[in-house]
């Protein structure tokens, strides 16, 4: 018997990376999944975003656990798209208990050189997109009156300020504020709200040529091998990054009844990166 038997979870950015790992992990614990992803490029993001094939792979992996999944292409910046996707999911799966607001992007530049477009894409995806996700999920969770759990995917950059990541850091700090308010507002209805704060995670958002160049600005065509040492230097624990499954384990805990009185927590999953700052 799983920790999440009979529950339904909405997960954004579910086509790959942390979102896919979360979908599979929650399904392993018995939850049915509503998986959404933009499955398209956002112009200012300097690495490739997920594709429809990626989302199909998430569907296959969730179904391999024996659980049901409704997958939809939706841009979290567009509440109408999110709403339509969730409506399809709830119609098919019967209810909603959990929302994992995971969809996010990054781009980087010195704060004074960030463009209006970069700023807007990061803030609208990483902050407003999360609010949109909560906004569509809360009425569905309320419907059954049994409470629920929201997990907002922040970052170590939601706790500390990273050079070259001013827009990302602003959005991820903003999420902590949003979590604290929603936690206060929804606590009386037994809807818990927490943030997770991953450090470097082994996902396509970290492991791509653009990030290699950011980490190793002095090298010609740096590779994954080259950033391992730099990334390991961020962490007290001897690892360059955590795995998406580590993040998914934390999410599975927070949304389960094991955490039934945990709300308002800012949970780092970062090999101690937050301690160095």
């Amino acid at each position: 018997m799983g920790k999440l038997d009979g529950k339904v979870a909405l997960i954004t950015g579910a086509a790959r990376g942390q979102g896919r790992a979360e979908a599979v992990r929650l399904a392993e614990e018995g939850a049915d999944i509503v998986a959404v992803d933009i499955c398209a490029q956002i112009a200012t993001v300097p690495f490739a975003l997920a594709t429809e094939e990626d989302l199909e792979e998430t569907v296959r992996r969730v179904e391999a656990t024996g659980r049901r999944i409704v997958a939809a292409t939706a841009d979290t910046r567009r509440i109408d798209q999110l709403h339509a996707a969730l409506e399809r999911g709830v119609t098919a799966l019967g209810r909603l208990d959990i929302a994992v607001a995971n969809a996010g992007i990054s781009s980087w530049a010195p704060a004074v050189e960030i463009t209006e477009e970069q700023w807007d894409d990061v803030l609208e995806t990483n902050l407003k997109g999360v609010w949109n996700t909560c906004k569509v999920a809360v009425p569905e969770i309320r419907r059954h009156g049994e409470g629920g759990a929201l997990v907002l995917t922040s970052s170590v950059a939601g706790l500390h300020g990273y050079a070259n990541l001013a827009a990302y850091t602003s959005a991820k700090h903003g999420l902590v504020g949003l979590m604290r308010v929603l936690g206060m507002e929804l606590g009386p209805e037994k809807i818990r709200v927490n943030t997770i704060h991953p450090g470097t995670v082994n996902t396509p958002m970290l492991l791509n040529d653009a990030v290699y160049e950011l980490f190793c600005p002095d090298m010609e065509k740096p590779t994954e091998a080259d950033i391992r040492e730099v990334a390991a230097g961020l962490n007290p624990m001897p690892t360059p990054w955590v795995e998406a499954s580590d993040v998914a384990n934390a999410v599975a805990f927070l949304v389960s009844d094991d955490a039934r009185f945990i709300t308002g927590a800012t949970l780092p999953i970062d090999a101690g990166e937050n301690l160095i700052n």
Partner: protein
Amino acid sequence: MSGRVEGKVALVTGAGRGQGRSHAVRLAEEGADIIAVDICRPVDTVTYPMADAADLAETARLVEAEGRRVVTREVDVRDYEKLAAGVADGIAELGGLEIVVANAGIASYAPGHEISDAAWNEMIDIDLKGVWHSIKAAAPTLLAQRAGSVVICASAAGLIGSPGLAHYVAAKHGAIGLMRAFANELGPEMIRVNAVCPTQVDTPMIMHGEVFRMFRPDLDNPTKDDIVEVSTNMNLLPVPWVENRDVSNAVLFLASDEARYVTGLPLTVDAGISVKVAV
């Protein structure tokens, strides 16, 4: 006697009245010339009136009464090009820029999942993006001289999650993040970046009917007097709110060389609201 920011030039946004005007005047009292900007017109999603051109002119008069110079511009901090042009005008006229007080901000109220799209956007654009714009407009000058002090006017809501204004709290937490990122980027250039985090301040942003009704839903037409007790109970120190000058004194400290090695600090001027334990 020489003032604590003698001979410096300070940019103050949202300077038409309230905290912004107070910061401008306080810095002028201590010897700074002021670039005072304010939108001076209404915005769509707030229920109280914004400052107007007469308010900004009054700020200018008060600065000049301290014997300092002032350049005013009617500028929306959401409009980077116009803001940068206004800052450039001020630098040209006053001869420099050392202090940035990113103060312009709005407030509106609703449960988090009921906030309208328009209210969310306007809040994030003014209270967060506007701060980024203000620093961005000043940064080339500060970087060129390898000196400067930036003060972001955040809020206790940058540290705690006060219910009923999720977009404001998100923007103010975001402003603390922005402060930390800028502090890291500009520190090596000897530019300091800090934030002030006030509790309720006695200004037109909160002293109006919408807030009175939120604090006293039990009354039909609550007034300022009716919210004293509720507001006092929110704070740790037994005061209902702080005054503009209390915030301005913190801004002045951070802006001055007295704080020359203070950077990355969210400085609470909050009567203890952010550390109060409910019992």
